[in-house]
């Protein structure tokens, strides 16, 4: 009887392509993966618990640090959840909604750029990595202009936005979305037709629609298995129902499909951003809900009521009615959900984040068992996980 000896390789948490501090315990038979067990938790910072000790406004910066590649999407999910809890969803001004959608789509492109960059680098195409980061730099500049920070933006506020758009920002966004389709074609030119790229991605990391639904996959990973599900269209928020965009789906559910689908999603995002620019009208950026939103600075300096409001909101925060809500949004990586419970105090009683990466990571063992070592890397890349969000 032949004795099969396997080798256990401890891949990570220090490894160049586990996208952070993911640890994979791999049982290898030669180059074939027999068993894969992902271990998470190396980046745990207790974000959910920390919010219980902060008022709703002050918990917002923590959400930047969940999926640090798409901070504005996290902000959006959080502010929408708190607004739902407060029951002020309808009071959000139109301009704030449009800017939120615009920045959420810019963020989607930003997240997908990092995904493509690292995915291509993992498979060995180094040049695409640098091209993607060149374009990401343009988004970083947009972020910096709008919020002052390149990564941890903290731009949205419960009730609206922290600041209005800086002068000339529309032109910068316009220049960016005009250049982006050309850049996407460059990436496609380097990868799509490349025989090696195709061989490395077609049929690799396959997952069927039934399995994807069972595991709870969301985002591009689900849509590429043939399930037509996108919260932006199927459960719209922040006015997404008013925009005209295609939900990109694929049938085969392999790495190549997920690659082409995400490129198409970037193109769709550009279209949504264009529609946002067209709809952008002057108006207030904060809801007229004085017990939640900070009064304008000018009023604070001139009126005693505004000063008292400012003081109360900053020192005490606001107190939603006791209750619990769930708000899910279509983040770049899948469904990002916030489940919030209020006990009537100024701090959340509990905030549970449903991070897309954490759920999507569950599909990894199934996708790579029986595959080769090199496919492990390709599959981690195609799932587009970020550990800040998985470990929270």
């Amino acid at each position: 009887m032949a004795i099969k000896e396997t080798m256990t390789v401890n891949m990570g948490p220090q490894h160049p392509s586990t996208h952070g501090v993911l640890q994979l315990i791999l049982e290898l038979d030669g180059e074939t993966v027999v068993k894969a067990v992902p271990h998470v938790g190396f980046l745990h910072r207790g974000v959910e618990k920390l919010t219980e000790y902060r008022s709703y406004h002050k918990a917002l910066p923590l959400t930047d640090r969940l999926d640090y590649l798409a901070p504005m999407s996290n902000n959006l999910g959080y502010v929408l959840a708190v607004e739902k809890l407060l029951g002020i969803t309808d009071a959000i001004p139109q301009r704030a909604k449009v800017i939120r959608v615009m920045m959420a789509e810019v963020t989607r492109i930003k997240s997908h750029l990092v995904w493509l960059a690292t995915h291509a680098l993992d498979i060995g195409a180094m040049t695409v990595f640098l091209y993607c980061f060149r374009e990401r730099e343009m988004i970083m500049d947009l972020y910096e202009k709008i919020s002052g920070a390149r990564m941890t933006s903290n731009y949205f506020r419960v009730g609206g936005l922290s600041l209005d758009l800086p002068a000339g920002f529309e032109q910068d966004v316009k220049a960016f979305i005009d250049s982006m389709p050309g850049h996407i074609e460059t990436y496609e030119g380097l990868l799509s037709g490349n025989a090696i790229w195709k061989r490395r991605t077609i049929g690799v990391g396959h997952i069927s629609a039934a399995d994807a639904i069972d595991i709870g996959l969301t985002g591009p990973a689900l849509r590429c298995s043939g399930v037509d599900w996108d919260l932006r269209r199927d459960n719209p928020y922040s006015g997404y129902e008013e925009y005209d965009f295609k939900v990109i789906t694929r049938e085969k559910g392999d790495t190549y499909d997920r690659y082409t689908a995400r490129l198409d999603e970037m193109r769709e995002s550009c279209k949504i951003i264009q529609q946002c620019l067209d709809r952008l009208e002057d108006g207030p950026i904060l809801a007229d809900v004085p017990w939640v939103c900070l009064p304008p600075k000018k009023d604070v300096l001139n009126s005693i009521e505004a000063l008292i409001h400012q003081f109360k909101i900053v020192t005490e925060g606001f107190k939603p009615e006791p209750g619990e809500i769930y708000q899910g949004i279509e983040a770049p990586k899948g469904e990002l959900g916030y489940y919030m419970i209020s006990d009537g105090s100024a701090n959340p009683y509990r905030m549970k984040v449903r991070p897309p990466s954490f759920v999507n990571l569950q599909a990894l063992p199934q996708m790579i068992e029986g595959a080769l070592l090199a496919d492990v890397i390709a599959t981690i890349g195609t799932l587009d996980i970020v550990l800040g969000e998985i470990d929270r």
Partner: protein
Amino acid sequence: MPEMLSLSNDPILFIAVMLTKILSVFIVVVLIVAYATYAERKIIGRMQTRLGPTMTGPLGLLQPIADGLKLFFKEDIIPSQASKVAFVLAPMMILVPAFITVGVIPFGGDIVIRGYTVPLQIADLNVGILYIIAMAGLGVYGIVLAGWSSNNKYSLIGGVRAAAQVISYELAAGLSIVAVFMLAETLSLRGIVEAQSGSILNWYVFSQPLAFCLFFITSIAEINRTPFDLPEAETELVSGFCTEYSSMKYALFFMAEYANMVVIAALISTLFLGGPAGPFPGVINILIKVFGFMFIFIWMRATFPRVRYDQLMFMGWKVFLPLALLNIVITGVVIIL
């Protein structure tokens, strides 16, 4: 044509000329190796919207020297569980074969010194090609030993990959140049260069295009360059067989990689592009060809993703090997007819 200079007719001149040739070839190769790293970083940098080194010296030209010095002063770590003798031996076993292969490559036509003909080639072995294939085969021992002796799983996988890869691709590479010496009717590289002399159309790249392509691709696989850089696939195996190496030992691996590039570029130029033949003096011609191939190697690295292990094996055994055999058959038939 005057008499060939040899040890019997003028021993002192012979030894002096020989030492000069060896020294100059060695220095030139070392310089090319050093500046190939610079060129690679500059060229890939430009292709990837970066600048490459700019700070060390004018245009960053002193960068290879700075790198060498830095690596020289780094702590030389030998893992406590490593097999020490093999661990120390491995980098040398990679570098030495890479350098001594240059010995049989002709780098110019004949010159006349004090009434004797002196060939611009260190040694004209009558089994030149076999010698080169043998040395290429030796190089892989270094990689396997490095992978095995490091006592690191990534290194081990890298070493095993290297062994399988080099053995498979050596077959196809060796068979693809069989067609060349069927035409040249000699194994000596000098003989092959002479057989291609006369006109540019005599270059074997025109009469043996398939062999040229096969040898070019399989050579890249043999020297572990992108897209066949699986043994050191950094995104899978951290750094493959040289994961545990540091300091000068790592530098030796690094130099060996570029030395192999130089050798392969020189070899392809010799076998298929007429070696030193061309419009300029011989040495310049061959340098132009070598640099041209090195540029292509670097360009490929900036362009291609990495193939997967099973696909690499598939291509080696089921595509390149049959094609090489087919090429031999076709060449044979054409020669007989």
